[in-house]
């Protein structure tokens, strides 16, 4: 009897432990000291343009002597979850990078330092890219500094296109598909070959199809947001996308573009093309992880629209850097940002990272370079996500990823998957902003 009571006690304790475990958050970063600033950047910087970060830190140390810079690279999947926990615990970094779709909620919650009065002290502030500056502005106040922009284009193997009998680059979606089918005919016997490597949860290469056919992710009607992925036009775009992906891609339909890095899969040779950012081109040629011998046979072109001669609207991605209100080293943080977004850093970002720098004064750097032109062109006709403060929750809940993976695996029809995603988007966007 007594031992059983002990057993019961142990059982009750185990239950309580599980309750606590269910409420526990993620780990917190190190405590900062006065002689160190902590910077969170996304890992794109690490694989794409690490030199920019290194030279910024060198310049910063030269100026501030004893102050260390601790750059911690984050992944897109969970950096906001970590940030929220760090903000709550008072251990947030001094500088943090946000995707340009993620800022609104943090600006609305007043978690970012208001930079309006010192806008002029940041380099090139009068020539910042308008789209990025808008993503840093809330109710007319400035809360972050534009960092870079990027639009995706098709990166392809010129040699394979030639060998398969594709002349020039496709000028319409139909030609794009026809070219892909030729590649599949020529190389498709290799089991892992994809004419277009397209992992199922690749949101930012999928949504262009929706916008190309005249659809939208969501619209604001009479003060309320309404998910519109189930509109006939959007469904038409998604259906076309499904057709192209099923016929041209053998990538994992429940995987994403970062696991494994698609440019590395490309560098292994069994891929005819993929839709990628500028920085993924040099990454494919990386001596350690990529394949430098592909240098001569790689090319890029802007993804064509279903309307011949036009290009498909590209998602204008990008990043901003901000200082959380909790930072204890704000003036040091501003100074680091000033160096990081200086003209010389931005020039490096354009040449090494192949991204679009934050200022229009440097756009010529990209336009003159034939390797960068397709990406710069893609950004000319672009779309952006709904500007609702809650949009980032749609991203965090992976609504679009889940929709795409159920479409491509055939778990749901295009229509029902789009309807479900649309309803979720409507629900999330109309929740009170928190």
């Amino acid at each position, binding site marked *: 009897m007594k031992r*059983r009571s002990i057993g019961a006690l142990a059982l009750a304790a185990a239950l309580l432990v599980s309750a606590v475990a269910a409420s526990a958050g993620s780990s917190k970063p190190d405590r900062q000291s006065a002689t160190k600033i902590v910077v969170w950047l996304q890992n794109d910087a690490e694989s794409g343009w690490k030199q920019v970060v290194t030279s910024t830190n060198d310049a910063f140390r030269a100026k501030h002597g004893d102050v260390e810079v601790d750059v911690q690279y984050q992944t897109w999947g969970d950096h906001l979850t970590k940030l929220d926990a760090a903000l*709550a615990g008072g251990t947030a970094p001094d500088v943090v990078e946000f995707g340009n779709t993620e800022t609104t909620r943090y600006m609305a*919650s007043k978690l970012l330092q208001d930079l309006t009065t010192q806008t002029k002290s940041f380099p090139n502030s009068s020539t910042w890219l308008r789209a990025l500056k808008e993503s840093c502005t809330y109710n007319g106040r400035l809360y972050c500094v534009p960092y870079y922009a990027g639009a995706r284009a098709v990166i392809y193997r010129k040699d394979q296109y030639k060998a398969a009998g594709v002349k020039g680059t496709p000028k319409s979606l139909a030609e794009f598909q026809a070219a892909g089918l030729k590649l599949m005919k020529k190389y498709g016997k290799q089991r892992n070959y994809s004419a277009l490597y397209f992992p199922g949860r690749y949101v930012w290469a999928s949504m262009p199809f929706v916008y190309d056919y005249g659809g939208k992710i969501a619209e604001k009607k009479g003060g309320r947001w309404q998910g519109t992925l189930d509109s006939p036009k959007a469904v038409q775009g998604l259906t076309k996308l499904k057709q192209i992906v099923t016929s041209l891609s053998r990538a994992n339909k429940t995987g994403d573009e970062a696991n494994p890095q698609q440019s590395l899969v490309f560098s292994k040779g069994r891929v005819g093309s993929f839709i990628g950012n500028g920085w993924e081109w040099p990454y494919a040629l990386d001596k350690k992880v990529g394949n430098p011998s592909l240098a001569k046979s790689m090319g890029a072109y802007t993804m064509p629209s279903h309307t011949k001669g036009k290009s498909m609207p590209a998602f204008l991605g990008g990043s901003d850097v901000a200082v959380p209100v909790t930072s204890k080293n704000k003036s040091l943080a501003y100074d680091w940002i000033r160096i990081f977004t200086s003209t010389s850093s931005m020039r490096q970002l354009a040449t090494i990272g192949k991204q679009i720098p934050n200022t229009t004064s440097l756009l010529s750097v990209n336009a003159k370079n034939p390797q960068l032109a397709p990406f710069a062109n893609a950004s000319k006709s672009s779309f952006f996500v709904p500007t609702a403060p809650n949009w980032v929750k749609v991203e*965090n809940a992976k609504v679009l990823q889940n929709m795409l993976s159920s479409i491509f695996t055939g778990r749901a029809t295009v229509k029902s998957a789009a309807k479900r995603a649309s309803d979720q988007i409507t629900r999330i966007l109309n929740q009170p902003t928190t």
Partner: protein
Amino acid sequence: MSTGPGGEAGFPAVTAAAAGSDIRRRRRPLGERVFRVASPYLLLAPAALVIGAVLGYPVYLLTKLSFQQYGLAELVTKKGTWIGVDNYTRIFQDEQFWAVVVRTIVFTAVCVGLTMVFGTLIALLLARLGRFMRLLLTSGLVLVWATPVVVAVNIFRWMVDYEFGVLNWTLTKLHIGDFLNKDWFADPTTGFAVITALIVWGAIPFVAITVYAGLSQVPAELVEAAEIDGARRWQVFKDITFPLLLPIFVILTSLSIIWDFQVFTQVWLLRDGEPEEDYWLMSVYSFVEAFRLGEYGFGAAIAVVMVCFMFVATFVYLRQMIRIGDTR
């Protein structure tokens, strides 16, 4: 009857002491009597205090949080708004919640069932093995048990990998079918099969070793007697071994239910930190709502409901456990 292996010696002493105190009670001074009554509680107090501090307080906070509107802004100001039972009403009106509950219950039942069956079978095997093989098998079990969950998940993830997985390769080489580029997670049924395999694999050692320890305490004479009476292996297990080890099975099942009901890491990591809704168990649902959507109050309410479910599920076993104690 013995309630489990070992430890029987402690009982007579305790009983004798209790009886002794009965006889002498009237002669003892009041202070000592109070001390005698209070001493068990005094002895329990340190443990109770620690449990209260490290478990009770967080649970209190969790419960408080579940009655509040608590989002990102509140997270920084550290002040929530009291909204009564709104979070709970929202849970019970959420269709998705019920789908998640059913999925979690089925998943738990399958995992616990398989764990208990395979664990017991391996324990029975251990009892019949020679010394060397038993040592080998036990070491294997302990190694499995010692493998950290995250490491185990990564191993399984690689085994079922879409492109390079050894499972797809082996199944194809064995001509069981064409498994090249088979995506195990495209269909939630096969996806959950992988997750279940991982969970059961990790849970078997504890069950097997504990049941084996129990088996070594089953009196050999009883089994022998039954065999002389003509009982078959299965009948010996059903009528002798199983009833004798019932308390052990009850506690193992209860613990397994608790563990499997709150599986999180395995699902989360196998799905790259963004599980599709078809893979949402209660713990995942709570985490997504709280930490991905920044609805900490709502997430806390789900966690509280989850704990209540577990209490209900294990209450039956707790009762039975105490009843076994009363009757025997």
